[in-house]
């Protein structure tokens, strides 16, 4: 089956999966209580409450409520965010940009560092370099990121005062016009290097915190896959052709070792998104993770549902991307069979 056909087929199935996910999400959220709970007060009469319920179609059955919600979503109306006191659709892009900046930065840290460390260790199996990377990786994989976040904050923010907290210095970023919502990119587009430095400086600690765990997992996977590949016959055959060790590693063994690693990388990106919740809370990063946590605590259902809907779409798309990369790396994979 052609790769293109496969992608088209998967894209056609995608909307149905999203509808299914949204139904589950809607039902589960409604079980948690009335969506207007946070707007009600004790002084209201039952008649007033009934009137509000009728306005938001809460007097109808659950499927009908879902229909009204889904219609709103399709029209770009995600409801009212009680936490932000603004329409969800208006706040969401800004929050998403903040989270995107953080997760992409940590994703880059994780993939670059993970693949490099894994290759470095795998090619030097059982030598000191391998043992050191193993320690680094096991630490990363076993340390919860909220703990690492607090540790880094205590050292670099509270004690040494080297690193800032939050997303940016408000006075500096105020001078930069918003184009993409990603502060580093906006600053670069505006040619404002001071703002870029500031944005990057704020980004480093949370990105390392968030990326460390994923770095560790990717590095371990890459290392073991590479060690396995290096024992196969084709590696010796490549050497027997007269290839320098550098090419044997880069062109032959690493390419094959990437196949299992790519799956792990795809999964890790999902976890990065999950990890943003605690990291954003601790670093006071104004992204969707922190927003979601606030809305759970306040019972803000419109915000919560938007978050869950968005995350599930991200997971579905990530899976598709991983499958495509996979097929590109390993020509034996026949997609759709």
């Amino acid at each position, binding site marked *: 089956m052609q790769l293109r056909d496969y992608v088209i087929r998967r894209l056609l199935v995608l909307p149905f999966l999203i509808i299914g996910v949204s139904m589950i999400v809607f039902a589960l959220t409604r079980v948690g209580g009335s969506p207007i709970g946070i707007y009600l007060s004790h002084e209201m009469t039952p008649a007033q409450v009934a009137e509000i319920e009728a306005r938001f179609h809460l007097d109808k059955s659950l499927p009908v409520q879902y229909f009204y919600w889904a219609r709103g979503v399709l029209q770009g109306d995600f409801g009212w965010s009680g936490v932000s006191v603004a329409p969800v659709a208006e706040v969401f892009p800004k929050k998403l940009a903040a989270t995107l900046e953080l997760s992409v930065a940590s994703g880059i840290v994780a993939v670059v560092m993970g693949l490099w460390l894994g290759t470095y260790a795998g090619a030097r199996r059982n030598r000191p370099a391998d043992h050191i990377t193993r320690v680094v990786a096991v630490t990363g994989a076993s340390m919860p990121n909220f703990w690492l976040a607090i540790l880094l904050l205590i050292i670099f923010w509270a004690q040494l005062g080297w690193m800032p907290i939050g997303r940016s210095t408000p006075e500096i970023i105020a001078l930069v016009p918003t184009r993409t919502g990603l502060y580093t990119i906006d600053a670069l587009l505006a040619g404002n290097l001071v703002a870029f430095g500031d944005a990057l400086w704020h980004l480093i600690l949370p990105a390392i915190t968030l990326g460390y765990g994923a770095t560790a997992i990717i590095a371990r996977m890459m290392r073991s896959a590479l060690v396995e590949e290096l024992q*196969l*016959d*084709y590696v*010796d*055959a*490549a*050497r*027997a*052709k*007269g*290839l*320098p*060790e550098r*090419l044997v590693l880069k*062109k*032959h063994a690493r*390419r*094959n070792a990437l*196949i299992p690693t790519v799956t792990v990388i795809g999964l890790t990106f999902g976890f990065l998104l999950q990890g943003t919740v605690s990291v954003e809370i601790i670093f006071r990063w104004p992204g969707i993770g922190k927003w979601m946590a606030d809305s759970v605590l306040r019972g803000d259902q419109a915000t919560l549902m938007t978050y869950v809907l968005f995350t599930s779409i991200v997971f579905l798309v990530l899976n598709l991307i991983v499958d495509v990369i996979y097929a590109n*790396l*390993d*020509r*034996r994979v026949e997609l759709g069979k």
Partner: protein
Amino acid sequence: MLDMTNRPSGLANSPATIASVRDLTVHFPSKRGMVHAVDRVSFEIRDGETLGLVGETGCGKSVTGRSFLQLLPIPPGILAQGTVTFHPHARCGACAGTGCDACNSTGRRPAACPSCTGAGCAQCNGSGAETVELLRLPEDRIRRIRGDRIAMIFQDPGKALNPTLTIGDQLSEVFLQHRTEELLDAAGIGPEDRGLAARLLGRLASQRNGSIDNLLLSLPPLRGKRNLLLDALRNNVAAALAETQIANPYQIIDRYPHELSGGMRQRVMIAQALACNPDLLIADEPTTALDVTVQARILELIKDLQKRRQTSVLYISHDLSLVRRICDRVAVMYAGRVVEIGRTDRIFRNPSHPYTRGLLHAVPTAATKRGQLMAIKGTVPELVDPPPSCRFVGRCPHEKALCRSKNPELAQISDEHSVSCFIHDAAGAADAPSFDEKTQ
């Protein structure tokens, strides 16, 4: 057999051997002690001959074969002692490698010793031929020999080809590593060119190109030359594939190994090994992983190519009947040692080591009646810190006390036939074992 008296070369005293192994000893440390995988193995490969290296699994034949290319797992393995000397050939000057009368249409001639340019000196033992010691050659020099002067075919072509690269990609690498100048020449770049185009194409033609190189080379001013180079590369690859009787080489180039049959894959491996017209081919059980019918055709192919190009072959196998069909001489290995070596007809007509005899008796023929097939009793000894005895002790039907206390050296028993067994040791007299006397 090759006529050794009329060898075409301008050297003082051109050697009749292409490579010789002396006292090769490889150890592997294990939890229980040192495993003597290869123990003082010595033999030589004559120029243009096919030497069979037979023995059962674990007797050290593959380790011996791999040592020619420094492909031994060292560490953990330890090269305890020994040398592997090799006389590389160079391209024939008269015909530029296409084959002429001067080089016996092989396209190759023995390379001259760099210190005396062929006159004969102490460094080349008076032969005038270039002599290299393969085991101790530095990485960058052994790399230039691998795949160019000495090539190797592996046992399972399904495993020895990279599953994620096309056949063309994999075969190209041989040319990119060893035929860089020719490829540049095809693109119109001479050796004295120093411009940007020459530098970028030079990096492409020696696999040192990065993604920026590729981008620059894909843009108009350089694109044409790059395409010339890539076309030359593709033609070289197709020609190498056609050599192995692959009918549609240009269609195979873009295929992946899993899309080909086992026999086709082995043809690709052979094409890859012979792409640079090597002097010596190490064939490590090249037909073991194939069907019997395919096996026969691959064997014919190797035999045919060997005859046409006069390539010396070290044919490693456990299959006696196969070795008998293809080899000029045979070396029998047992438990890390060469126990018998000689011309194929002598070994098979007159096997003179008890192990070789046992092996030949264990091969069923059409005449063998039910229950008549002989087996060698016992199992192969463990090679962990072995005693200084003959390795066949405990399984040999003729063994004496002498065999248990001392190791017999390889000694010539007749013209072109050497055996390591006290049976042929005239000096042993009373204590010596004999084929006539069964002691066990």
